[in-house]
């Protein structure tokens, strides 16, 4: 396979999402294994700044479609436009982040192009001249090695498995692209965004998560206080999201976000398989739980058996006692 590779860029109405940087790295890994140049595709309206950002990450060129139909992300026109880019340029592979963005339109693209899709990949290798792809299954307890047949090869990329691409010091050309697509009756109506000045959950160096043990929506402010002391993002277990104490996009786990920060602190979380799936690759895990038998202690580097309502204020006080540099 020496055909070129296309990375579809994720942005939220003009705000570049760093998830794309991991997809660019995965594309470069594939390129080093199988050849081909790496291009990026930006679809949007009035988002040339995103195209300029992407142009600095070591890609050959950036295709940029600027049209009202892309003003808001929708799967139907997105998948159709990427399909057209593939047909016109003969790409041998397409990569997108394994976020709710990539997971939405990439399988649709697979259907449109009659092409194989490997979801949520964590590794790429060549074995006996054949491409081998690694991806987690069963809540991350099993890693499968898969082969793919057909063209182009489609991948959604797990952000925590590939380092973020760094600026290359060069600037790739941005080339206009004019796909002929429509939304086919699908309409964007609105978004309830969780506005926050904290770092993105999936990029944060530290994540502090709360679970059912937090017991009430108003108590989440305690989780947030610890997070803010550490400059951390806030996460939650499914139980806390289901209860309405935390927004859906805070859910960490098999069916939420996958994070791998330097430090993950679980407060009042039992450590169900589905939660561990989203955080067990964190470098250091801390658990605070009043139940010494809680399974979270089997993965925690440091466990504190305590009532979180007593322990968290104490932790905050201890942190405040550390002289800041």
């Amino acid at each position, binding site marked *: 396979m020496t055909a070129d590779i296309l990375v579809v860029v994720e942005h939220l109405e003009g705000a570049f999402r760093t998830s794309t940087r991991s997809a660019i790295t995965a594309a470069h890994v594939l390129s080093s294994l199988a050849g081909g140049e790496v291009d990026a595709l930006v679809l949007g309206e009035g988002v040339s700044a995103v195209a300029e950002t992407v142009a600095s990450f070591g890609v050959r060129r950036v295709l940029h479609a600027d049209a009202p139909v892309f003003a808001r992300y929708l799967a*139907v026109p997105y998948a159709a436009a990427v399909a057209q880019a593939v047909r016109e340029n003969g790409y041998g592979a397409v990569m997108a982040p394994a976020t709710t963005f990539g997971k939405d339109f990439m399988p649709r693209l*697979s259907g449109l192009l009659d092409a194989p*899709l490997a979801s949520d990949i964590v590794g790429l290798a060549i074995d006996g001249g054949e491409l081998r792809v690694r991806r987690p299954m*069963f809540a991350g307890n099993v890693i499968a090695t898969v082969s793919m047949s057909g063209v182009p090869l489609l991948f959604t990329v797990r952000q925590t498995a590939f380092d973020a691409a760094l600026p290359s010091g060069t600037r790739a050309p941005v080339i206009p692209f004019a796909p002929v697509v429509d939304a086919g009756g699908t309409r964007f109506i609105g*978004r309830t965004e969780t506005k926050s000045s904290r770092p993105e959950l999936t990029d944060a160096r530290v994540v502090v998560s709360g679970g059912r043990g937090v017991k009430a929506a108003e108590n989440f402010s305690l989780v947030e206080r610890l997070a803010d002391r550490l400059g951390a993002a806030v996460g939650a277990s499914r139980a806390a999201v289901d209860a309405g104490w935390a927004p859906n996009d805070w859910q960490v786990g098999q069916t939420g976000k996958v994070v791998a920060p330097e*430090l993950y602190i679980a407060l009042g979380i039992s450590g169900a*398989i589905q939660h561990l799936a989203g955080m067990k690759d964190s470098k*250091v895990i801390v658990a605070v739980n009043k139940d010494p038998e809680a399974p979270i202690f089997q*993965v925690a580097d440091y466990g504190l058996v*305590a009532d979180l309502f007593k322990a968290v204020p104490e932790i905050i006080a201890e942190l405040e006692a550390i002289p800041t540099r």
Partner: protein
Amino acid sequence: MKVLVAIKPVPNPDERVKVSADGHSVVLENVKMVVNPFCEIAVEEALRIRDGLGGGEVVVVTVGSPSADPQLRTALAMGADRGILVSAEGPLDGFAVARLLRRVVDDEAPDLVLLGKQAVDDDNNQVGQILAALLGWPQATFVSRIEFVDGGARIRVDRETDAGLETIGLPLPAVVTTDLRLNEPRYASLPGILKARKKEVRVVDAAAAGVDLAPKVRVLAFEAAKGRKGGRIVADAAELVRLLRDEAKVLG
């Protein structure tokens, strides 16, 4: 309103599966098979749509081994009207499943197809979107609310995205995949379970569909993911913060 729901049997999600010694398979002996939780949510939603709109039909379909009959019966016991089992041998990838489901959609002509957002065994998150593309229908994934508008000609849905809740509108027929917060599935009642035994389950042979079932994505080997060792239990907050600073060096 006719709603088709695609369901998949999966090993009980709360049990940890093991990989066989040769790495060729995942050991499922003694693991109970259940309806994939996201598919249960899809069945529940279909029942609420049927009963809320005062009529229509809920058809459940599964693709794969005939051993899926108990999971189809679970959906029937919850209240679905009838079942279809598309019987196929050997490993199927998401694309092959979508192709077979497409045939069922052609036959049944539903107004809405509901699927789970992901099967919690393969964690693929693909089938609904591939099916939508094959049908040329609009799609809405990760849905946590469905509302019928325009006299039932369109739906308005909330989607759980990485950047919060998003609302989109789409015309029917459409493909929708369910997220966790859409509803809380009911348990099958005893009368429901008894009734389910007599409900129709049509078995069709996948080979008769005349579609290419060769997997595009083939699993060659499985391995157990690296485990993590639990570390130490600390005495108090002071010791925790000291270790994080001096030993783990993750503060500041």
